[in-house]
């Protein structure tokens, strides 16, 4: 099955997406997901609204490449990546990465790989609204370190 990627302004229901992911495939023994949500505590001040800008075209291209890399590295049954753009409120889901595999080890690893790479390679930019005004979120060194792990661990992982 092909991986599916959606970049959309509309809110999504993570539970419904997970239900749909493995439906009809009895070979799926493990379903692992990451849901990123808008946090109300920003780096410097409380956040009342988050706006996500992206680079249409490149975003889909990068996400597609990341999913292909995951599928080449682990045996997966299906992958879904959904990322919202535009304005959203604290508590709302921003991103869903869901991986269906036969066994859990590959599904866990692939899910973490995809979100780590997404955070450092996919062209999205967050802007926070705070009581002190709007500000662009700065990239975090920890995200680059998390993504860098996968560069040094090139071994094929099966679960």
């Amino acid at each position: 099955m092909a991986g599916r990627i959606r970049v959309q302004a509309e809110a999504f229901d993570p539970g419904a997406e997970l239900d749909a992911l493995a439906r009809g495939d009895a070979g799926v023994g493990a379903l692992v997901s990451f849901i990123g949500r808008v946090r109300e505590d920003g780096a410097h001040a409380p956040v009342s609204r988050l706006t996500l800008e992206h680079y249409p075209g490149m975003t889909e291209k990068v996400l597609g490449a990341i999913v292909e890399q995951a599928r080449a590295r682990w045996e997966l049954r299906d992958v879904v990546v959904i990322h919202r753009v535009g304005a959203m409120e604290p508590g709302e889901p921003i991103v869903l990465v869901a991986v269906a595999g036969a066994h859990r080890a590959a599904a866990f690893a692939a899910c973490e790989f995809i979100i780590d790479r997404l955070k450092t390679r996919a062209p999205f930019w967050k802007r926070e609204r705070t009581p002190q005004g709007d500000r662009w979120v700065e990239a975090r060194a920890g995200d680059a370190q998390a993504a860098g792990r996968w560069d040094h661990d090139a071994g094929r992982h099966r679960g």
Partner: protein
Amino acid sequence: MIRVLYFARLREAVGTGEESLALPAGVRSVAALTAHLRTRGPQWDEALGGRRPVLVAVNQTVAAPVGALADGDEIAYFPPVTGG
């Protein structure tokens, strides 16, 4: 013609999100285009001058400063990404 895009903080700093221009004479690399754009004024120099990290994509793939440019390319300038 080339198409040049600016995103997020850089879009705000230079005051435009997108423009088309003739590939300037002698400009054959990302670094040369960046140098050309920086001569447009203080806000361009500040935004693209490297005091804060700037990434460049050519035809939607991240490119090094030595990356070659040709007529018809789409070049994008943007800050480090913060999605997820």
